[in-house]
Structures are given as C-alpha cells and as structure tokens.
C-alpha cells in the first residue's frame, strides 16, 4: 500500500507535549511543535518542500545535515531559508507552490 499523493512524508514517532506553533504552508494553516525544524514541520504536513527548478518535480531535502542544500524553501516575506537548519517560527508562511517570487 502506498501513500496518497498529498499525504505527508514524515511521521512523528516521539510525541512531545507542550504548546504548538502555528504556521502556514501555501496559506493553509498548520501546526508544529517547539523543537521542530522547518523541514520537519513542513514534511509532517506535506510530501515535499519545494518545486525543483529544472523539471516538473518536487524536492523534499536529502541529507538533513546542511550539506546537500536541497531543502532551501521560500517564505512569503521573501526570505529564503534552509529548512533543515531553521527552527520553525510562529506565523512563518511557507511558500511551496504558491507562485513565483521576486
């Protein structure tokens, strides 16, 4: 059995209690937990982090250790951040397929 096309990629194994951190992905509200890196926060809700520039495809990161640079994502305020080293912040607005930037 395989996952539905839009099902999240990650699966939380260790639940943490405590407050939640609201953020959005393409305008859709989502919640993360304190200690979640942006990569985790996104992939617990979505199957990918960003469109790939040179083909009709998406990317979801690869090395999770700041080496491969595959996980740079766009934020609605114009910032570009590397999702595997950036803590998710309250109110962050992630743009995956929400249109071109600049």
């Amino acid at each position, binding site marked *: 059995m395989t996952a539905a096309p839009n099902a999240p990629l990650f699966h939380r194994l260790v639940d943490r209690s405590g407050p939640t951190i609201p953020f959005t992905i393409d305008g859709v509200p989502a919640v993360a937990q304190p200690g979640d890196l942006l990569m985790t926060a996104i992939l617990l809700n979505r199957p990918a982090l960003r469109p790939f*520039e*040179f083909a009709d495809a998406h990317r979801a990161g690869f090395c999770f250790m700041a080496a491969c*640079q595959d996980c740079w994502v766009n934020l609605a305020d114009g*910032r*570009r951040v590397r999702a595997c080293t950036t803590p998710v912040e309250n109110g962050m607005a992630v743009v995956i397929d929400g249109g071109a*930037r*600049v």
Partner: protein
Amino acid sequence: MSEKLAVDACVVGGGIAGCAAAVALRKAGMTVAVLDRGACGAGASGVNFGGVRQQGRNLHELPLARRSRRIWDTLAATLEQDLEFDVSGHIKLARSEADMAELEQYARDAREYGLELQMLGANRVRSEIPWLGDKVVGASLSPEDGQANPRVVGPAFARLARRLGAEVREHRRVTAARRTERGFAVEAGDLTVESAWLVNSAGVFGGTLASWFGEHAPVEPLMPNMLVTEPLPYFVSRSIGVCGGDVYLRQTGRGNVIFGGGRGWGDAEIARSRPLTDQSLGGMQRTLDLVPALTSAQVIRSWTGIDGQTPDRIPVIGHSSTTPQLVHAFGFSGHGFQLGPVMGEIIAELVTQGRTPTPIEPFAIERFAAEGFAAQTAELTHTEH
C-alpha cells in the same frame, strides 16, 4: 621523449582568439599547431562574465566588435555547440545627469561605427525594468548585444580546430620561442614546434612573448571577481552595466544571476587565482543597491581568472614591429570574449594576406615604444567585462 612538429603556423595560447585563429588558418589551407599551458578556453576566455557586448567599448574596438557580432549569429552552428547565446540586449544605466550626458555622447560616437543605441529616459527605464532601485536617471540600450556561456566557447573552438586537422596540444607551457632561418622554433617542455608563422595569443603572457622578440608591451594581470546566485525566477531580462562600470549583472536562461564584484587575486606564474572576500561583499552591496530584488537571493559560488590588461585597456593586435611573420593578439584587458571569434579571422587575414580590411592601427604594438607612454594612458571609463 622529445617531439618535433613542423607546421605553417604555431599559435601560442589556446583561448578563443587562438583557437579561432587555428580554425581560420586551417580553413585557409595552412597547417597549424596550438599550444596552451592549461586546457584550451579555460583561462580568461572561459571564466569571464560572458558579455557579448559592443556598447561601451573603446570606439577603436567597435569595427572589430561589429564584425565579431555578425559571427556570433551563426557561431553555435559553426561550432556545433549550444553557446547559450542570448540576444538579451545590453543596457547601460546612468545614475546622474553627467552619466546621461556621457551615454548620449557615446551613442552619437557609436553611430559613426554603425552601432545604434537607444536612449531611454527615467520613465522608460522604470517601465522596462521596474525592479531597479531608484538611483537610475536614464539608460542606453544596445538591442543587439547579449550574453553567452564563456566556459563552452573556447573548448568548442578547440574541438573544431582539431576536427579541421590542427594539432591542439594542451598542458604545454611555452618556455621559449625564437626566430630561426626558416621561421620560428617554439619550445614547450619536450615538444618543439617549428613554424613559418607565429601567433601570439598568449593573454597575460603576451607581453613576455613579445619581449622575446625585442618588443615592449606592458601587460598586467587582471582578475575580475565574479559571483553567481542560485537559480532565481527569471527577471533580469537584459545584460546590465552602469556608467563607471562598477556594477554589472546578467541572468542565465537557467535563472542564475551572474554579477561582478571588483578584482580578485591571482598569480599568473603559477596559474592560481582566488576571489577576494572584501571585493565580493562590496560587489554584492553595490549590486543590491541597484537591484533590491536580489535581497533574498543566495550566492552559491564566486570565482576569478587571469586576463592580461594593457595600460590603455585596449588589446595589442597586428604584425610585430620587429619580427616578420609574428602576429600579436593579446591584452584584451577583460573584454575580449565578444571579440574572440573575429580575432581568428583577422589573424588569418594578417597571416595569409598580410592585411585585414578591419582597421587595427590603434592596436599596434608600436604604441608602447613611444617614450612616456604611461603619461598618455587613457582614462579608464568602463571596467565592465
């Protein structure tokens, strides 16, 4: 084991000009050897900005640039290589009324050479390039200028030269060249090339090679400091420069924005060069001032390379003043990329016919022989590459 080659023409320096000369000389029926200290097209020909630009050049260069520009139209087909040549136009921005006056004067002068530039007022610039900062008061547009990928042009010329039968020898550093009874003997390690003609397209070493034949041509190393961003959504529709030349940028078809940032470090002797941080950061800030849209972009790489620069910032092109059958084409001072293709034809004309229909008198090596040349050095008005 030592090796000897005997050819009609020996080309020292396998940049675009040298390899293009090999192609043209082969087409004229001559036997040719090309020697390069590294890989062909990997020096200044391969690491420059990639501007295919006529606008802003020293007026003396315009006849060459005009002729070369025509070659660019069919160059990809000739070389059987996608050169990523994009006729994006080149726009030169004025940030003051004085700049604007300079652009207007240049446009009038360039028209004499057949180069038509369009003057754009502030409103027109803003409507055409809305993402520019507010420092621009006007611009001049050269619609037929553009950009290409420099890394692939020189090697493609070298391959064509090989296909046409030239002996292209890479990683052969020329250590000596002298006049012999029948012509020249060129030493490159254990390889000796004997030739009737010698072409000096040796870039930063062009002055040294000339000195072996008793000629003076001051050539200093020039290391343009370059940076490139990650791929961005396409928005820089023109290749862009400014009066004063301290900012220049273009965006490749793949989305990377390439921009200049001052000068790097280099040691021509050991063929090593490095971008310099202060220069890179300065270039980033100046480019950002002009293009605020780059605020969120990331730089993924920087580089430099070693070109040869003359005191008057124009190349040495023409017959030797001391030695028959020696032809010079070096010292392109950071803006030889666009001229490279035509240099092949001009060198071949000088070799096979003794003259070229393109006016090259201003580039004669004799200009450096005059006493006190330094005092006559032209004001540097444009450092864009």
